[in-house]
């Protein structure tokens, strides 16, 4: 039996009830539009918010933790070897924060094919001397070019040019919050004191604004050389090695691996930022839930309209059966109607959803906290369009399934006799 005939009959039935069919299709269009627009928008926001943290965070960070020496003298004494020694109030040794032998470590990491890039860093506690008061802060000594390449450093430098950090000796880019607190303007020279007591004059060449207020109140940036000079350390002094991977899912296992090899501490991004993953997942879940609810509601619309159509078209169904259409054929006719509504509605819905995304992307969205964002972010990932399309087919299929089953069960004798 040709599918063409089924389609023809389905088409004729739909045209006979064009208005209702049209309204059912609009329901699908609306829900798919909302589904795609909502997911695109939600995920755009998700990526933006995650990006705030995750783009700025190395996938693996190597450092030396300040901690007590695990080999205490008493353990070396032969006299006490058979005892269980308890030492109270242990103090950390004056162990170096600096990563020993960092050059070969960096070289090894750079040669690892899983690694996208490596950026060394120095963290230095400082006091900014403002008149008679000291304000605490942290100066991060960075490799400016690597930092820009791996962590989009330049995106967050809202005033001044980030390359000045490299090109100007003794320069600093102040966190916006810190700059406000010490009332430093671009081009000003500020004075800072390190924890070791060294004093240094720094020229303000830019402001840094990450969007996270707490961070911007303390963090400032200087070049590695400047920071080393400030701390009075040699050119090999580095406190952190930041690694960005090609696939950040590998971070935990690689952190474990290299922790063993290098004998230093290593944190992976998943452990440090577990709560961001959770937040993202929940937001995604909510948008899917809303989108699918919309689809189910439109599914009920189709269900209603098909049911109505079946009541109105009982005669037609009875004639078709009397002239030799089987229950299966009648079933196919109504499933075809449902799927046609689903396909057309879904397709137009995807298109409108795309337009809605383009529209949302144009709405201005300027906020102090997010300096790089000028309009609402929208994610145009084809994934959402595929999911939306598939869901529209599934829901319309099920919306059509029960009415179609009912239609296929119509007893022509009942109808013909009832006339």
């Amino acid at each position, binding site marked *: 039996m040709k599918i063409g005939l089924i389609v023809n009959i389905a088409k*004729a039935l739909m045209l006979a009830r064009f208005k209702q069919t049209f309204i059912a299709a609009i329901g699908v269009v609306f829900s798919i539009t909302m589904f795609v627009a909502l997911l695109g928008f939600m995920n755009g926001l998700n990526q933006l918010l995650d990006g705030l943290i995750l783009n700025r965070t190395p996938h693996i960070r190597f450092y030396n933790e300040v901690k007590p020496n695990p080999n205490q003298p008493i353990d070396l004494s032969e006299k006490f070897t058979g005892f269980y020694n308890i030492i109270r109030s242990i103090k950390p040794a004056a162990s170096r924060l600096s990563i020993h032998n960092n050059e070969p470590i960096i070289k090894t990491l750079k040669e690892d094919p899983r690694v996208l890039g490596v950026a060394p860093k120095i963290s230095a506690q400082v006091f900014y001397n403002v008149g008679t008061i000291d304000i605490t802060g942290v100066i991060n000594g960075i490799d400016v070019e690597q930092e820009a390449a791996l962590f989009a450093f330049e995106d967050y430098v809202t005033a001044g040019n980030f390359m000045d950090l490299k090109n100007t000796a003794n320069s600093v880019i102040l966190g916006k919050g810190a700059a406000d607190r010490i009332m430093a303007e671009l081009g000003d020279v500020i004075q800072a004191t390190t924890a070791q007591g060294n004093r240094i004059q720094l020229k303000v060449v830019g402001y840094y604004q990450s969007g996270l207020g707490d961070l911007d109140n303390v963090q400032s940036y200087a070049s590695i050389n400047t920071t080393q000079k400030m701390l009075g350390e040699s050119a090999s002094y580095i406190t952190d090695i930041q690694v960005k991977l090609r696939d950040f899912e590998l971070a935990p296992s690689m952190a474990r691996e290299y922790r063993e090899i290098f004998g230093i501490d290593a944190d992976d991004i998943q452990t440090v930022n577990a709560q961001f993953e959770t937040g993202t997942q929940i937001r995604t879940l909510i948008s899917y839930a809303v989108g699918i609810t919309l689809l189910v509601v439109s599914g009920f619309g189709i269900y209603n309209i098909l049911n109505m159509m079946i009541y109105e078209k009982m005669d*037609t169904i009875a004639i078709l059966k009397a002239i030799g259409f*089987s229950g299966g054929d009648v079933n196919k006719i109504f499933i075809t109607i449902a799927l046609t509504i689903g396909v057309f509605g879904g397709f137009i819905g995807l298109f409108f959803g795309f337009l809605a995304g383009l529209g949302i992307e144009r709405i201005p969205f300027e906020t102090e906290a997010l300096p790089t964002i000028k309009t609402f972010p929208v994610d145009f990932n084809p994934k959402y369009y595929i999911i939306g399309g598939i869901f529209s087919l599934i829901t319309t299929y099920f919306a059509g399934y029960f009415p179609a089953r009912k239609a296929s069960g119509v007893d022509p*004798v009942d109808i013909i006799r009832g006339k």
Partner: protein
Amino acid sequence: MGLKTHQLKNPYNDNIFIRMKGKPVLEAKGVNKFFHSPVKTQVLKEVTFQITRGEFVSVMGKSGCGKSTLLYILSTMDTDYEGSLWIDEELVTEKSPNHLSKIRNQKIGFVFQFHYLLNEFSVLENVMIPGLKLDQKSRQELEHIAMEKLKIFDMQDHALKKAYQLSGGQKQRVAVARALMNDPLIIMGDEPTGNLDKKNSDIVFNIFKELAEEFHQTMLIVTHDPEFAAGTDRIIEMEDGYIINQ
């Protein structure tokens, strides 16, 4: 109105027809039918009869004696009965619904009292649909055949109208044309002229008569009209669920 003899193309070669005359087309053996609501009542009682090829048979009987019920069983639409039914020498009792659909499509043409056309389709399409469903010929061929059928009933000028745009008599003529579409073994009609005025009823009656005479079409027609019945080869008389005369 009447058959246009120059257009007639007898689907049955007369020789074959004569050779096959006498072969049973339809056979019912001991058919009993019960309705269970509101109370159990037996509507058909041991109905047994045979129709052979080329016969034009009418069924008569008082209102409520079970004529329609019998016809629904014979047309395979009602499968809830006792006894056995052969169509074209094949036992169809207990056959699957899909198989019965095929038999209805290919071997039976049904004409109802109320003209039951598909209002969503044109007259031509209505006639074609059983052929499209059978799916043995191309669309062009089917269109041509459907047009020929319409010409038999002088309805060719209305081919492109929608079904609901026709008068009652015209609709019934189209319904008979549709019943003929797949050159069925037998045409069954349940009071096909019952809903028509005298003039239209005469037209349809003449159509059946001429189908019998010119095409030797096997037909089983339920009617209340003694005049109609008188024009048929054989009258089956029913009373209270029994066949009392055949």
